[in-house]
């Protein structure tokens, strides 16, 4: 465990020194703050615009960080041959993979938390300033749903890091980025596959579609941004099951990454 934490610590330190990270976070903050400008021309839909734009900014930037830092996690060490130094120490390959994952997961946790707090202050300002209007139009402020939406976004990041890590352990960063993006896009439209499975008459195709739907990451399940604006179906059961799904799926991805990495030969 100590060795895993040590790799995680190094990964975290390396990530926060990355310029790409800072520019992405800066862009997210710019989007969050600019939501105030857009809200002012939204015909009184202040809270909706601020929440939609802010939550989307956090999600997009979080996904980009997960992909772009995730694809370099293993490949960079192999390419720079620093992996030999690491394995000359008593660190096992699975510990290396787990440490890398935890390091980036922690980095994203801190970044997401920071962005969420800034967004929350802006949301709070809007919700207090236009309290009567927002109550009239939307029937409440839905702060719990707001934080839940961010929590679910973070769970999605953890899965995307896992996907990037799997590809990073056997292919180049460019290919990893492409593959990760494709899997992400398919995951975002998982319900289309489900609909297809329900529609087709051929039982073999239906079973195949259903199997694909169950195996691909169902990233749509992490989208509760709508509830942050209108309130709705976010209850403890949903939080529990979604968390369990994310943890199990991320664990499966980590195992796959470990299996691939264990078989990799370093020349």
């Amino acid at each position, binding site marked *: 465990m100590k060795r895993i934490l040590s790799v995680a610590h190094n990964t975290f330190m390396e990530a926060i020194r990355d310029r790409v990270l800072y520019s992405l976070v800066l862009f997210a903050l710019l989007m969050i703050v600019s939501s105030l400008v*857009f809200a002012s*021309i*939204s*015909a*009184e*839909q202040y809270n*909706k*615009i601020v929440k*939609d*734009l802010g939550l*989307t900014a956090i*999600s*997009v930037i979080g996904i980009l960080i997960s992909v772009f830092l995730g694809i370099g996690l293993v490949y960079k060490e192999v390419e720079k041959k620093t992996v030999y130094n690491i394995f000359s120490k008593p660190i096992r390959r699975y510990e290396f993979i787990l440490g890398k994952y935890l390091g980036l997961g922690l980095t994203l946790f801190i970044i997401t938390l920071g962005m969420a707090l800034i967004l929350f202050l802006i949301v709070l300002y809007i919700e207090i300033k236009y309290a009567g209007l927002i109550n009239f*139009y939307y*029937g409440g402020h839905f702060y719990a749903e707001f934080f839940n939406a961010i929590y679910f976004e973070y769970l999605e990041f953890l899965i995307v890091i896992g996907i990037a890590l799997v590809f990073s352990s056997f292919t180049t960063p460019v290919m990893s980025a492409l593959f990760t993006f494709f899997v992400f*896009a398919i995951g*975002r*439209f998982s319900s289309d596959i489900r609909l297809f499975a329900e529609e087709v008459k051929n039982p073999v195709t239906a079973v195949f579609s259903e199997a694909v739907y169950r195996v691909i990451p169902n*990233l*749509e399940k992490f*989208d509760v*941004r*709508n509830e942050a*604006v*209108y309130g709705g179906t976010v209850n403890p059961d949903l939080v529990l099951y979604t968390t369990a799904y994310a943890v199990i799926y991320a664990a499966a991805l980590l195992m796959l990454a470990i299996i691939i990495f264990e078989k990799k030969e370093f020349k």
Partner: protein
Amino acid sequence: MLGLIAIAVLVAISIPFQVRIDDIRGKFRSVEESLYLSSASLRKISLGYTEILSDIYWMRAIQYFGSRKIEEQNPDLLYHYFDIITDLDPRFVNAYRYGGTFLAEPGPFGLGQFDKGVALLEKGRKNNPDNFRLPLEEAFLYYFYPKDYVKAAELFQEAARKPGVAGSREASVKGMAAAALAKGGDRELSKDIWRIIYETSPSEGRRNFAFRNLQEIETMEIEDGLTAALRAYRKKYGKLPGSVKELAAAGYVEGGIPAAPIGGDFVIAPDIDAVRNTELASRKLKEALAVLNAKAARFRKMYGEYPRDLAELRAFVGKETTGEFPEHPMGEEFVYNPASGIVESKWKYGESKEQ
């Protein structure tokens, strides 16, 4: 350094070409064209971030329609816009409300596309079955424009049943349904609704209001009965009786003239061959005068002077406002002064003697 200058020069040279390209392309591309994308393709492009796309379309719609005169706007485009917005975010209730109302209302407030506006609101009702504002908004549209009071009452009642309607608001919405039914001719159902409000409302003011409405409807029912007797008398004798007492004395009113629940007397309005209650007529007259004087003032605000005559005021109310020109409860013509813009009545409660 020389390289940087060369880059700057090249960029500067490219600008006139860009301007020329914009000129050429501008002739072939309209704003409308660039907006006609299906919501299905937008949904795919959005990668799941549909809310933000819906917001962008919302703001573009507001800017597009805010920057053009009503007569220059394209109702098909407006419907398409709001259809996309609500496909991407089906819970965006205000998009259905604003879009539906703006489409359905006639000029100068809206585009006069009633069917399109109602279609948008119906889509909203389907996607948000618990929301009371959407049937309420649709009810107002039916009430004011095609003046379909039965449909309006049905929608008011639907709104009153929704879970989001709080106690006092529920009574108001039920009241609107009752008023629409009374206006549409279904007085029995209207009375039932006012009775429910009277018996269940926790607010004393609202109970009093419901009671007053119940009394008014009951008075109108007596008026109808006496008017039928009056017309039967006229049919037989070829002239109107001198008073309602004479009508009763001739045996046309069984059990004599009843007392009006709201007070006042029953009198004959010879201009419309009807019997009217003085208290009820006085209340209606007060409302009618208030409406007409406000409309005359509004006419002046828009055109710089008061209407020339009652005909012009009538045309203005009918075509350019959401209301309708109220009839004089005694069937008389209103008295209008074009210099002051004041509408008055010759008949006044108190001056009318029991006939």
